[in-house]
């Protein structure tokens, strides 16, 4: 009897505590309806408080660029928050310069909407749209790179600058319970506005690339949004150097096709680096383009060709090959896309050849 009374007492206390916690959560975490005032009253959104500014805006179809899915690792989702943001979080500090802090920039993925908030957003972000696409084709380009063509719904088009990127949204799969999104550069030409081609390299253990490589096939419906980014051709010169590795070929393909279609008078030197031949793709495509267009020079290079590759092209690290081909690039612009290691190495060689940092462009994701 004593044991039963004790068990019942403990149970009653537990239930009471659980009830108190639920009630407390309701009152303390329920921020009610909040207003987001955008660009001095141009748009006023009413949302339920409690979510991040990034996801609150996405819920209202205003898409702020983000490559990491709101985990504060890419630093792309900056917006100016004039009022209502709360104190700067330690997670934001590495991404904000002194000037940006003075001008009230914040990472929108880290700002929680708890009250009315006033923000400034560049007008061009209102052009970003979300599309429910259908996969038209999936092509195995190398052992770890696939090309995906996403067909937009009939009548819909996406207007982008060659070099920009889209965000691809996953669905829950295997042990991954939540949807995530990541950024991928567009490989197709802007003129091909009913189709978006993305080139995705499988990142070992990566949530989104594993999803794309193992779950997606022709006919599947996939959500994408965009366009985003400020990696695009400036063209304030007569000649450019383009250097890519792996899936970094994607924005170069888009830029090259755009330049050729529009007959822009710029000479393009496109260096594409890999270790062995099995890492290269689109070789025939670019060799053929270069044969037909004098202003495109295509230089694929292998850093360690395998004997079976029978490779008679350039050999060496891509930086060494650039060093051999380019004498002085102080009047040129540089466009880079690849891994952080490759980009850092290329920055050094382009600087050495006279190119200033403000003439070198690359995506920071």
């Amino acid at each position: 009897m004593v044991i039963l009374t004790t068990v019942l007492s403990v149970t009653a206390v537990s239930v009471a505590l659980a009830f108190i916690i639920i009630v407390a959560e309701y009152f303390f975490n329920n921020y009610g309806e909040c207003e987001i005032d955008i660009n001095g009253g141009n748009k006023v959104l009413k949302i339920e408080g409690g979510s991040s500014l990034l996801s609150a805006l996405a819920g209202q179809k205003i898409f702020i660029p983000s490559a990491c899915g709101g985990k504060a690792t890419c630093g792309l989702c900056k917006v100016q928050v004039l009022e209502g943001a709360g104190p700067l979080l330690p997670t934001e500090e590495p991404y904000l310069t002194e000037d940006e802090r003075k001008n009230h920039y914040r990472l929108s993925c880290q700002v929680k909407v708890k009250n009315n908030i006033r923000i400034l957003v560049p007008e061009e972000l209102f052009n970003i749209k979300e599309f429910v696409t259908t996969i038209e084709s999936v092509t195995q380009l190398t052992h770890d790179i696939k090309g995906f063509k996403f067909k937009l719904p009939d009548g819909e088009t996406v207007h982008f600058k060659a070099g920009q990127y889209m965000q691809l949204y996953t669905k829950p799969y295997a042990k991954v319970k939540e949807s995530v999104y990541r950024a991928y550069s567009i490989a197709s030409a802007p003129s091909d506005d009913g189709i978006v081609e993305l080139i995705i390299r499988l990142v070992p253990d990566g949530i989104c690339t594993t999803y794309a490589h193992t779950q997606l096939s022709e006919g599947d419906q996939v959500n994408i949004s965009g366009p985003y980014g400020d990696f695009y051709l400036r063209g304030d010169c007569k000649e450019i150097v383009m250097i890519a590795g792996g899936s970094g070929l994607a924005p170069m393909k888009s830029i090259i096709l755009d330049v050729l279609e529009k007959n822009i008078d710029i000479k393009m030197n496109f260096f594409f680096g890999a270790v062995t031949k099995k890492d290269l793709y689109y070789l025939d495509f670019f060799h053929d383009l270069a044969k037909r267009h004098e202003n495109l020079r295509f230089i694929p290079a292998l850093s360690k060709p395998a004997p079976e590759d029978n490779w008679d092209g350039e050999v060496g690290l891509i930086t060494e090959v650039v060093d051999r081909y380019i004498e002085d690039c102080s009047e040129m612009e540089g466009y880079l896309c690849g891994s952080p290691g490759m980009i850092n190495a290329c920055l050094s060689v382009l600087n050495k050849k006279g190119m200033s940092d403000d003439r070198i462009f690359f995506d920071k994701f």
Partner: protein
Amino acid sequence: MKQSPELAQIQANMMPGALSAHGFIGEDSRNLIDIIQSDLEALQQLGITQEALADKMQEITDIGAKGLGRPESMDEHFEIAVEDYKGEIPCPFKDKAKANKRQTHVRRLDTGATIRWTDLNIHMIREHGFFEGYGSPYRLAPAELVKFLGMV
């Protein structure tokens, strides 16, 4: 050992799908605190500190990274290939640290044995004494790793 609520929250952050497809715990049913303690004891028995081990791994990764994917040799002992991917991954210990999505593949030239680690492995060993749980794709057993690197 009893685990603090903070570590329990971190362990939840290590589950599949939170930061990576497979997570960091694998099939290990132990608490995070027990996984860490057990591996640090194993390391201590070998007379190696987690800092010394992380330093050695970082030295190898730095040498390999110069090859931009091409295998590089080190001291006639190792062949190293560093695969670099776009993007960064945050540390699951929520310490504000982020690591490049880089993988270092190391082959011993004398035995042909191979091992691989990520930049995040190096960080988690150095700062948190965490070698990942049993069955995790990137688990590094301390004794095997130390022996592989010729530190004992």
